[in-house]
C-alpha cells in the first residue's frame, strides 16, 4: 500500500553513478485523483531544508523509465497512475549525509475539464515531509 502523503518515506536514498554519489532520490504518489499523463505535468522544484533544486536538476522515473521535464512534456500517452510510485531524482554531487531532512516538492499540472484558470492552481500546494537518510 502507499503512504497517505505525496512524499513517501520509502525510497529516500542517495544515487550512485560509476561508484560516485551523484545525488539523491525519493518517491511520490499522485494525490490527483485520476493520475496524470506525463505531458500534463509542469516542471517540479525541490527544496531540502533551505537548499533549492530547480527543474533542470531533476528527472522523474515512472514505470521504470527516466525522463527530463522536456521529455515528459512530449509524452501524452504515458500515464502516471495512482498506484505507480514516481521517483524524483535530484542532482547533487556527494548526495546527502545521514540525518533528518525537510523535503519539499512543488509542481502543477493542467486539467482540461476545469476552467483554464485552474491549471496554475491545481496541485500548487507544496508537498512537505521530513525524511531520514540512513
Amino acid at each position, binding site marked *: *500500500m502507499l503512504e497517505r502523503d505525496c512524499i513517501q518515506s520509502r525510497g529516500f536514498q542517495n544515487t550512485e553513478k560509476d561508484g560516485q554519489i551523484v545525488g539523491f532520490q525519493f518517491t511520490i504518489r499522485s494525490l490527483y485523483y*485520476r*493520475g496524470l499523463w506525463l*505531458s*500534463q505535468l509542469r516542471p517540479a522544484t525541490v527544496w531540502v531544508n533551505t537548499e533549492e533544486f530547480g527543474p533542470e536538476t531533476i528527472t522523474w522515473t515512472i514505470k521504470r523509465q527516466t525522463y527530463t521535464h522536456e521529455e515528459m512534456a*512530449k509524452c501524452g500517452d504515458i500515464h502516471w497512475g495512482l498506484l505507480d510510485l514516481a521517483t524524483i531524482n535530484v542532482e547533487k554531487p556527494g548526495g546527502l549525509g545521514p540525518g533528518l531532512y525537510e523535503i519539499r516538492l512543488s509542481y502543477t499540472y493542467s486539467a*482540461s475539464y476545469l*476552467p483554464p484558470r485552474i491549471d496554475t492552481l491545481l496541485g500548487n500546494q507544496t508537498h512537505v515531509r521530513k525524511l531520514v537518510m540512513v
Partner: protein
Amino acid sequence: MRIDKPGAKRGVSVFSYAGDYGVTMQLEDILADIHNMGARGLEILANSHIPDYPHPSEAWVERWFELLNKFDLVPVEYGHWVDSRLYAGRELTTEESLAMLVRDFKIAHMLGFRILRTKLGVIDETLTPVQNWKEFIQAALPYAEKYDVVMCPEIHEPTTLDSAMVQEYIEFIEQTGTKHFGLNIDFGIFREKKLPKDDEKGRPPFRHSRPEELGLYLPYVYCCHAKFIEMSDDLEELYIPYERIVSVLEEHNWDGYLLSEYEGFHRGEPGYASDQVRRHQAMLKRLIGE
C-alpha cells in the same frame, strides 16, 4: 445473468473512495464495501482505477470479471476524458481527440461497460466545451457503435439545465439521431445551499437547476451521478433535494443507475467516505424502495 428490474437502481462511483484508494483500500475492498451496502451498479474512472492504464494487463482484466462476479456488481459507467490541454500551449486536434476517445471505447467495451462519462475539455468558467467537440464526437460515432458504447458528457455545476450547452448537446442528438451520445446528470446541479467554493474569485454567481426541470431531459439521460455533500445521522442529504429528484425520476419512469458520488468535506479521512456512501445508499433505498 440476473435481469435488472426497470426503474431507478442503486450504484456507487469508486471515485467516492479517492481518499482511501491505494492507501487503506484496494479495489477489492471498495467493491466488497459497495456490495455490502446492497448496491449493484458500479462506476470506475479509467485513469484512476485501471492499473497500467491505458494498457491493462490480461491478468488484471481477468481479475476484474472475477471481482464483478464475486460481488455481484454490474459495470455501469466508465469515466474517461478528452484531455484537450494535454500538451502545454495548444489544444488537441480533432484527430488526436478522436484517438483518445477510441482508445477508451476499446477498454470500456473489454471491461463490460456501455455507458461512458465522457469529460470534454472546457474553455471557460461555465464549462463550455472546446470548439471542435462536435467534429470529434461526430467522427467517434461509428466507433461508438462498433464498440457499443454511449458517450455522455456530465452536466455538472455550475452548468444548469437551461444552459446553451445542454441545448446544443440535445440538438446534436436530435440532428444526428444517434443512440451513442447522451447525458449524465450530476445531481450537484440541484444543490440549493451554497458551499464555500461558490464564493471563490473567478466563479460565476451561484445558480442551480430545479429537479422539476429534469423531466424534459430524461429521455437523453443514460446515467446519473447521485452527487452528495453530507449525510446526516438521520440519513438525510443536507444540500441536495433528493426526494424531489427521485419523484421526477419515478414520474417519468426513468430507468437507470444512480451512482453515489461523495464529494464532501472529509474526503481525505480514512473510512469517512465509506460511512457517508453507506448512509447515502440507505437513503436511496428508502426513496426508491429497494
